[in-house]
């Protein structure tokens, strides 16, 4: 499979290394000459020095035969333009854009960029995940957060402990899908009681997730009160 990476910063060069190791046919496009030289010395791959938003440069990089294009420069407008060229000019099946500022995610989506990865958001999520690890975490994300599967561990700090499903007050856009107890799956009904060491699976979306976390944690106030 032929792929093109645009942007030779930390993200681009590491991506090039990874894809090369996996045996992909990859070409990298980077504007800065010095950076190009450094990458070419380090990794044996085709490195093209040029402006990735220039159609002629993209043609040199082999955009006509490319299956995937990854725009990972540090500038969001540049990444957007690259993905638009790939889509409208060359009918590339898959274009992936790095987004630096999470505020721009909706713009990329509205302009039809297939796949976006927001590094800032990913890092913030990972850090948040470390905070919440003991009680709830996102197991799977579907359609960029339109639907997520959340796992909730039931321990003594969980305010739902010993409650019945029907008594839990939940936001409207979420549902308790299953409970894992002693390796067995329980399909919860209203009269199912939540026990210690249960693992609950909740289906919701990214915008409702903070509400659920708030319900569970209350900034730790609930756990303190109990003690």
């Amino acid at each position: 499979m032929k792929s093109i990476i645009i942007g030779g910063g930390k993200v681009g060069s590491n991506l090039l290394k990874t894809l090369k190791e996996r045996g992909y046919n990859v070409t990298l496009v980077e504007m800065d000459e010095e950076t190009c030289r450094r990458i070419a010395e380090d990794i044996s791959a085709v490195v093209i020095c040029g402006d990735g938003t220039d159609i002629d440069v993209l043609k040199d990089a082999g955009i006509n035969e490319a299956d995937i294009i990854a725009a990972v420069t540090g500038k969001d407008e540049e990444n957007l333009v690259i993905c638009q060229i790939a889509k409208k000019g060359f009918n590339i099946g898959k274009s992936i854009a790095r987004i630096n500022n999470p505020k721009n995610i909706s713009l990329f989506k509205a302009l039809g960029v297939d796949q976006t990865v927001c590094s800032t958001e990913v890092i913030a999520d990972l850090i948040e995940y470390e905070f919440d690890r003991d009680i709830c975490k996102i197991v799977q994300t579907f359609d960029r957060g339109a639907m997520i599967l959340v796992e909730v561990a039931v321990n003594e700090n969980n305010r739902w402990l010993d409650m019945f499903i029907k008594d839990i007050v939940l936001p409207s856009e979420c549902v308790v899908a299953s409970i894992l107890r002693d390796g067995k799956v329980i399909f919860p009904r209203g009269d199912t009681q939540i026990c210690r060491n249960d693992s609950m699976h909740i289906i919701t979306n990214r915008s409702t997730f903070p509400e659920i976390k708030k319900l569970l944690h209350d900034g730790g106030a609930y756990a303190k009160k109990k003690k």
Partner: protein
Amino acid sequence: MYIIIIGSGRLGRMLSEELTDAGHNVSVVDRDSKRLEALGTGFNGLSVKGIEYDNAVLKEAGIKHADYVLSVTSDDNLNITVSLAAKEIFKVPRVIARVNEPQKKSVYELLGIEMINPTELISYIIKGKVEGSQR
């Protein structure tokens, strides 16, 4: 007419002056407050500081009732991104962008963005003068 000018550089400032004098409502957007200040006290339109293609910034500049968006910064990618947002998201009736790098013209064409290519225009004019003086 309500006109939004993106970029408060030399061209943006001159345009805003000309269009305001002609009686149009003008708002200017730029991420650099120093460049906005350079509009001077004579400018009585709206000036908005922020990332030029940001939803909230464009809305503050009044994009919902704009007749024209003129994207005239010195960065082609910025002009293209703003033009696409104005055309495809906010459905502004007319969007015109400035081309900086002449070889980027094909990108504007590909994405269906109406453009002005100053380098090309100036070279035509100069060429005309040179040839005119030969006669």
